[in-house]
């Protein structure tokens, strides 16, 4: 349990004390979950997260520190930035999963480029298939592919989200981390395929 550096009362958020209204300089190094006073687990109540975010954003807002000493003003800016970053990560289901993996990785080393066996070969084959369809401008076949990929992406996301939710607050083992990381990696390849299905031209980002 984190305590306020001024009044020593328990903190709800690592950034700010609700009891004595003081900014917490240690909050600059707080992890994304502590920013909202949450335990490090995947299932997050997005409504209450958003509410906490808005409340904290108001309390920490640099506008309210315009007349405060320079150090305190800078601290409110730093903590606001920390808050925004933590919010961006935790409100996004994929970013939240990746963040949890990063936290665990510090404890259990994982290979971050791992993919399920044969996955890369399959992705390459699918890209080649897609290339032919794009060249032939076969819109119907492309729409079918797109629907397939979308279904696969949704299944993949559902699968790792369930695994993460079931984990609750336990620290996972290496095998679990590897499984989640593999799925997060696979997600990006699938997103890439989807992107290509939707592109009507062969333009590529340099």
């Amino acid at each position, binding site marked *: 349990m984190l305590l306020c550096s001024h009044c020593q009362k328990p903190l709800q958020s690592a950034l700010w004390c609700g009891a004595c209204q003081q900014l917490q300089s240690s909050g600059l190094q707080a992890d994304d979950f502590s920013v909202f006073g949450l335990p490090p687990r995947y299932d997050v109540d997005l409504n209450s997260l958003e509410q906490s975010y808005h409340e904290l954003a108001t309390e920490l807002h640099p506008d309210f520190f315009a007349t405060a000493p320079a150090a305190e003003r800078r601290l409110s800016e730093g903590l606001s930035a920390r808050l925004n970053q933590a919010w961006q990560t935790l409100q996004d289901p994929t970013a939240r999963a990746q963040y949890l993996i990063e936290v665990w990785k510090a404890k259990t080393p994982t290979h*971050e*480029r791992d*993919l399920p066996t044969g996955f*890369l*070969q399959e*992705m*390459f084959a699918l*890209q*080649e298939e897609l*290339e032919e369809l794009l060249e032939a401008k076969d819109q119907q076949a492309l729409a079918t592919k797109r629907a397939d990929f979308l279904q696969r992406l949704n299944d993949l996301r559902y699968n790792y989200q369930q695994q993460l939710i079931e984990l609750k607050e336990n620290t996972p083992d290496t095998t679990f981390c590897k499984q989640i990381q593999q799925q*997060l*990696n696979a997600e*990006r*390849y*699938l*997103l*890439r*395929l989807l992107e*290509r299905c939707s592109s009507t031209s062969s333009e*590529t*980002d*340099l």
Partner: protein
Amino acid sequence: MAYSEKVIDHYNEPRNVGSFEKSDDQVGTGLVGAPECGDVMKLQIKVENEKIVDAKFKTFGCGSAIASSSLATEWVKGKTLDEALAIQNTEIVEELSLPPVKIHCSVLAEDAIKAAIQDYRKRQETSSEPTASA
């Protein structure tokens, strides 16, 4: 963001696009991917007497990944396997003036060269021992 003329040149006119027969004993195939962005790259070498006589690639990815692999095929041609193994991604970064966010594309190309050579050597081992039970 401005890209170097060399990237644009390789992107518009990629060298050595295509593929060799994967099962050919003279061929080594490297297939690699970048989980950061979902790019996939296949690089193949054709080897005679420990020397790379030809190379082909096919890359599904951004222009920098295409340019990196295109350049890699140009560079490995005429090199011995050991010389090709010594190619560093930093040389590709320098040649193409890749921006920091695109450095992983050059890493991918280096990995692809190494994977192709490794695949070739593995095939040589297995084909020279027909009774091997690996």
